[in-house]
């Protein structure tokens, strides 16, 4: 693991509890999560485009977790997790913010039961705005006619 990436992640994550097969690599602002086996194999290949999954993006001192990043790292987070109901989770996945009072400004990860739904930005207006790419959002007509 990249040292600076490790120390940054360990500020809010129980890094030592993560599965030993996982490695984090930071390139520019993006953090990817990959297994040791995949890293070793990639070194033997030509034309490598990506390895593992995009897990987080560094903005300033904060890390925004992607949906997969939240699902991988969520269980090891020590703070910043917001629990939501099924209907709140669905509207979050449509791009709607969640209203919560008394949250620390910065980044929050959203959890619906055992399922992590990515991260969002906690704003001064008491809302958490989702940072979910458009292509991962569900449409507003989620239901059978």
């Amino acid at each position: 693991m990249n040292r600076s990436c490790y120390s940054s992640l360990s500020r809010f994550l129980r890094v030592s509890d993560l599965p030993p097969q996982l490695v984090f690599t930071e390139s520019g602002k993006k953090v990817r999560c990959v297994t040791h086996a995949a890293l070793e194999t990639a070194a033997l290949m030509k034309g490598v485009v990506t390895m593992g999954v995009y897990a987080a993006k560094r903005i300033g001192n904060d890390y925004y977790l992607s949906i997969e990043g939240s699902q991988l790292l969520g269980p090891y987070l020590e703070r910043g997790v917001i629990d939501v109901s099924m209907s709140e989770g669905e509207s979050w996945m449509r791009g709607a913010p969640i209203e919560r009072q008394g949250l620390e400004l910065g980044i929050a990860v959203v959890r619906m039961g055992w399922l992590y739904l990515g991260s969002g930005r906690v704003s001064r207006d008491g809302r958490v705005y989702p940072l979910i790419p458009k292509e991962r959002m569900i449409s507003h007509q989620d239901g059978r006619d």
Partner: protein
Amino acid sequence: MIAPSEDFRMLASQLTDLDLEAYLRVVEEPLPECVRLNTLKFREKDVREFMHYRGWRLKPLAWVRHGYRVLEAPVTNLGDSLEHMLGLIYIQGPVSMLPVEVLDVRVGDRCLDLCAAPGSKSTQMCQLVGLDGVVVANDVSSKRVKALSFNLQRWGAVNSVVTLTDGRFFSKWGAGLFDRVLVDVPCSSLGVVSKDWSVLKRYRHNHSKRLQPLQAALLESGYRCLRQGGVIVYSTCTIHPLENEAVISRFLDRHPEASLEEVRPQGLRWRRPLEAFEGERFNPEVEKCFKCYPYDNSGEGFFIAKIRRG
């Protein structure tokens, strides 16, 4: 009613075991909706319970682990479901899940998917090899590699490597490196006409003739990437013998050290491959391959060969 091209009608008349009426009737219907549950990121039991709570009704498929037929869903378009967007499920045709199952992927294996885009079979391999294994998902088209990367991301495939190269030359650096190789080659797609009816209208005989050398070269390259004792699966979603039986027969003639293994999945109807086509008599071993027409299982038509490297 679909109007197939003259070339397709001629092909159908040569396939003595094909019931053209039944074929045309089935391909007019949409494929049955099936999904595979993600066991790489989640526990299957948790996903099933979650989906049940949300109104899904699923029935397990007999021939594939983690595969289900969708009986009821809370959304009209499965691709717009919460489960799809969060990577809990992969929407995939029922027979299309079979090649990876036949490949007999084990935990910790190093696998290669030579023609991987858009990634359904790569994601299936990723969930079977676990965190100690690895799947190299390769494709030749940069546009298709984008879709492949997107699907592997959604699946949480931390154990994957995506490469963009011409699969015919992969063995130059990948020779002998892999335990399992899947070669799901580009084909005339005559087994999945339900997805695109125009395939039947546009079909020309020389299309299959042109594809055959490419398919043979991809199989050859994939075979070279195997370690000794490793397994390669060659699959197509077409019914044309030139792209199926002929490719395998000629491969076996070139590689007497390779052994073909029987593919007889539980719960799926299958038929014996042809013994000869257009004057060419095939290697008798070819009968061990799996072949089905779309109407055999109300799904896709597929051809699958499983070869062990000697």
